[in-house]
């Protein structure tokens, strides 16, 4: 439900970087969206498409990389990808609350000219 605000922020950051580089156009935005970020990638893309006309990113491509959850098992001292919302280590069964990735929500890079 808050994807529109986040898309606006991404477009503002992109315009700001383009301006500082003296670039007129933003051709591509590369974003990273974690499974735990609370953001639906398709809703974010929809918002970017809807809000980019009239900004330097009008007509830009939006690459959204989805980052899956990765936890760390304190007992086995190794990372694992949880199978579901219960973050149980597949090797020892212990539930981990040490989440190492999946919260990402960032504008990674731009292509400008």
């Amino acid at each position, binding site marked *: *439900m*808050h994807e529109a605000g*986040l898309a606006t*922020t*991404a477009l503002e*950051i*992109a315009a700001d*970087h383009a301006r500082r*580089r003296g*670039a007129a*156009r933003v*051709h*591509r935005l590369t*974003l990273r969206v974690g499974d*735990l*970020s*609370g*953001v639906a990638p398709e809703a974010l893309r929809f918002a970017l498409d809807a809000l980019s006309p009239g900004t330097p990113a009008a007509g830009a491509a939006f690459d959204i990389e989805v980052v899956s959850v990765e936890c760390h098992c304190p007992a086995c001292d190794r990372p694992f990808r949880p199978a579901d*919302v*219960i*973050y149980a280590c597949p090797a020892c069964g212990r*539930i981990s*609350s040490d*989440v190492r990735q999946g919260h990402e*929500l*960032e*504008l*990674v*890079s*731009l*292509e*400008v*000219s």
Partner: protein
Amino acid sequence: MTEPAPTTVPVGESLKARNDRQARANRDAFRARGLVVLNLLSSPGSGKTALLERTLSEYGRRRRVGVVVGDLQTDNDARRLAGRGGPVVPVTTGTVCHLKADMVARAVAGLDLAALDVLVIENVGNLVCPASFDLGEDTRVVLLSTTEGEDKPLKYPRAFKTAHAVVLTKTDLAGPAGFDRAAALANVRAVNPDATVLELSARTGEGLGEWYAYLDGLVARRAG
């Protein structure tokens, strides 16, 4: 004339940077005044306001408690909480489904934070979006009522995973609702093995002593 070839510019900025910055500023301001700040999350109708009514009236005699109460529309909850001894500030979010750090900053601007021990932020009733927005609280409390499904922690894992405490409310209705307490507790534990779990009824008062003791513990830890 041909356009110059596009160049790649690294950015690496969080889209929540603005909220995160404001949340850090809130947290710094709260800590500087030795204030315990709770962010209260639950579905609509889980009993956040009922719990706060008694907390203000009863615990408010022991500690100075203030409340910021968020709702999409109406100040009904703020009116329910008013006149119980502590300051109550309503925040109407309009169409926004969660409180944001800047809304909290504006809400507390008129409060004398140094005159409070505990500030409770009652978030908008919603288990999805509020879980993703840091307000600057140091303790996140999620309520689950016995009239909801026991599998709420599995359906809304993010809210429950980020909780420091999970409070089972409306324990007086567990029987009539056919609430499977063991299953609910197992689901809470499965998604968050570390959370403090409390069980209470704001109507009968059962378990409120433990809730107040939990708040006392937070205050003591902050003072220490």
